[in-house]
């Protein structure tokens, strides 16, 4: 499992980085979403791989932390998901506004050599 997850994160990162360097705004937004997936999975991986152990504790007994997956990275990722949604939306609107003003969807607001 570990190696697959690591490779998955690597693939997402590589695809995201490639798109991040592209000149068109849509590519950059897509790249950021892919990078966000990678980062979220990476944070989750910091809690190590656990299957079938969601951190929902029993009501009656005292909870043994060894029985549950680490909730802390999950809380962090939950925050990250929402924030990355907000940044994606903001970026999209900024880029649309820039497109309306400059007439191009190049990230620098002017068509360069490409």
């Amino acid at each position, binding site marked *: *499992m570990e190696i697959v997850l690591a490779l998955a994160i*690597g693939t997402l990162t590589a695809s995201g980085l490639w798109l991040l360097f592209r000149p068109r705004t849509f590519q950059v937004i897509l790249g950021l979403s892919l990078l966000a997936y990678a980062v979220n999975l990476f944070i989750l991986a910091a809690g190590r791989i656990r299957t079938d152990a969601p951190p929902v*504790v029993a009501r009656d007994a005292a909870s043994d932390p060894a029985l549950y*997956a680490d909730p802390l990275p999950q809380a962090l990722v939950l925050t990250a998901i929402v924030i990355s949604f907000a940044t994606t939306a903001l970026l999209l609107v900024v880029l649309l506004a820039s497109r309306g003003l400059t007439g191009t969807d190049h990230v620098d607001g002017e068509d360069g050599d490409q």
Partner: protein
Amino acid sequence: MSSPVYAIEDNLILTPDPRLLLFVLAAPYLASLCAAWLPVRARATAAAMSGMVALAGLVAIAFFYPAVAGGGTVRQEYEWLPILGLNLVVRLDGLTLLFSGMVLAIGALVSLYARYYMSAEDPVPRFFSFLLAFMGSMLGIILSGNLIQIAFFWELTSLFSFLLIGYWHHNQSARDGARMALIVTGFGGVCLLVGLLLLGRMAGSYDLDVVLAAGEKIRADALYLPALILILLGAFTKSAQFPFHFWLPHAMAAPTPVSAYLHSATMVKAGIFLLILLWPVLAGTGAWYLIVTTTGLATLLIGAWAAIFQHDLKGLLAYSTISHLGLITLLLGLGSPLAAVAAIFHTVNHATFKASLFMAAGIIDHETGTRDLRRLSGLARYMPVTATLAMVAAAAMAGVPLLNGFLSKEMFLAEALEGHSGTIIDQLLPYLATLASAFSVLYSIRFIHQTFFGPEPRDLPHQPKEAPPWMRLPIEILVLLCLLVGIIPALTIGPLLAAAARAMLGAATPEYSLAIWHGFNAPLLMSMAALLGGAIMYRIAGSRLNAIEQSPIIGRIKGRRGFEATLATIIDGARMLHRLLGTSRLQVQLRLIIGTALAGGAIPFLLLGFTLGDKATTLLDPVFAVLWMIGGACAAGAAWQAKFHRVAALTLAGVAGLAACISFVWLSAPDLGLTQLLVEIVTLALLLLGLRWLPMRRTDMWQGTPNPWSVKLRRGGDLAIALLGGGGIAAVTYAMMTRPQPDSISRAFIEKAYPEGGGTNVVNVILVDFRGFDTLGEITVLSIVALTIFTLLRRFRPAPESVELPHQQRQQNAADKARSGAEMGDTVAHYLFIPRVIMEWLFPVVLTFGLYLVMRGHDLPGGGFAGGVTVSIAILILYMASGTRSVEARLNVRPVRWISLGLLCALLTGLASLLLGYPFLTSEARYVTVPLIGAIPLASALIFDIGVFAVVVGTTVLILIALAHQSIRSPRTRKPDDLPPRPAVRQGEG
């Protein structure tokens, strides 16, 4: 949190509460704020306020005199950052009592003077606001008992001095002078801060009293010399010592009350004050003697020499101030206790006579319209009182007996005669001191003689007349003080000086006498020689001075030119660096950032090698592998196709996102899977809405010909960085996951989630309870983003070529037109009719599901985020099914209200626990049985979560609606004539 420390020798003395000191310090700032709000013409009110605050402060300070006269210190300490040794300390001893008294007394007099000096046309309350703030900052330097605090107020004096010099900001020279003063003193301020940090490090504390007691340790430290040089740079720039003196004459563009206050009595004395304050710690070494004495001597001579050749009254006084500051610095450099006493004494004397001279110069300027010595003449017959006052003050400046300047100058000359080191400076000092005194006599005579005596003035801008009595009053008081101190020093300044000297020197306080007559001795002879010499020089050369344009010898060395050249060099250098290294291109910046991160991430691997941990890996599930084969391929496909096939790329990226969702669920994070899936839907809708406004892609720029090498090279480089980054992250992740997890706070979270948080879903309890404050911050960020997007889109103007209706709609409309019996737009209206009805019926179902997610969030996967996004999806579905106009005719969603109510709800939940005596956002949990539904967990955290829910609904809906509205808004603003010709190529638009 206050811990008053009394260190008073005699407990029988009744001392006012030390907290009064804090009031003295704060009052000018408060008054400054009040003055800033006064009406523009409230000249008298502002002046009265300023004067009253200064007087009240003076009275308050006076109450402390009994407590500090015997050498005691009054301290009040407020803890701020005790771990870092940063506490707010106000302290008062004999020395600081004298200096703060001086600042407040002259402040009161200057306020009165400025009331009459400032024109009613100017925004005078602003002037007094700055003046009061400056007064507070000056008091801050003096009353601080902490080194960092001193540096802080030091910077404030530079800032307010800048504002005051530039008060007449329509005047170019005022702006230039203000900027120059700010840059020079600001540079010194930075040096001072570093120097004080070093000093605190050497002493082991930033507390002034600890530092003062650690003199020997500091002088023996290896860091002593760098600290000394830095602190001296700070003091010398502030006190206009050579070679930094040039800013002071340019600061004369300030209104005269500012010159009288800042540039004679207070701000330039801040440097002197610092030297006096730290004298017990820093003085007494060879380096101190060499640097301080040489600088002081050079400043004394250069200032006095240049003052002789000034034609501007204020310029003359400015250079004279520089010269006297040099004298005081020289005295401090000598390092003997007696010289130090003389330095304090001369500081006070100089403030008294120089402030009155500046005020007199201001009256002359005010009443005649000019300050040019070459045009002024014979004013004594028009303004006899001012003339008399100026004469007495100038005589004090020249060092005429029976005036205060004489006494301290005698002490200076006596100290100049004493041997201190046997160096060449020491040998020459008596002669140079006499020479400088003679210069001082010369320019004092010139000031008086050319202004008040001689023939009737001609061609003055105004007919000269006497100034109003209230404007003369401050000068009268100051001149009276000059006389009193000069005639009966022991009864006036004596006790204050004694207290100051004892505070500064402690046990080393020397015996000194303030008598006017010490018998016929060498200092008296030198004094007489200087007086006679100055008078004779004026007799011989005085009439020719007016013809000399610039000071001989030193006139060509223009400090200003050097300053501007330095500034220009720095700016040019910065421009060059920016040209070399800077770029405004996003792609280059991103490559640099990612490249740097990559290099930084590679260093540990290169140094330590790549090793795996010994944690056993979990067994691979083939389904998981297949999942990521698909997910990875889709991610790579999205990267590949994003340029020409946008919708395809979006879909592929969506599949990769789904793989991430499934992984979350697989890896025991159901909350994440749920939220990610919902957010995925909203993001997709958002991007689809955005696609409409993007331009069509040209299939290829280099169609037919092979891509140029530069493009291939760039793409190759990007690919390499991307692959290296991806590979690196994969390696790091794998290495991390093969190591056992260190113990973390998670243990406590799991153990306490139910007993203390009242919820079984630990992730949700963390979000709304344990780390509720973070979540509050996060929803605030969300709200800000939503409002930003809303604002940006209000001004959104789509690019001209995306204004027309989409291709499909136009085809459908054309078909309607061609067909008989059909209204234009029928096909569009009936598009996907059955799915639309289903979608409308889904609305309540999705809505209920969203609410259910919120309610169960505390115990089971769900929560405010997931619920909020679900509800916004319900609204989104409705919009998609019925169209914007028809939804808004029936349903009035007010997203901004959702956002504000949500934020309010979350905040009030937090504040409620504060009211009940618990820390902010403490949760209280209980189960409540509701008929039909059963037991629901009703923690106060649930109310918080509802706040989160409302913010998320508001934000998401606001963003989506704002984007969706563009489509119905733009056709309305469209002008058919402006439409560009339709592009011929339509391929590549997904």
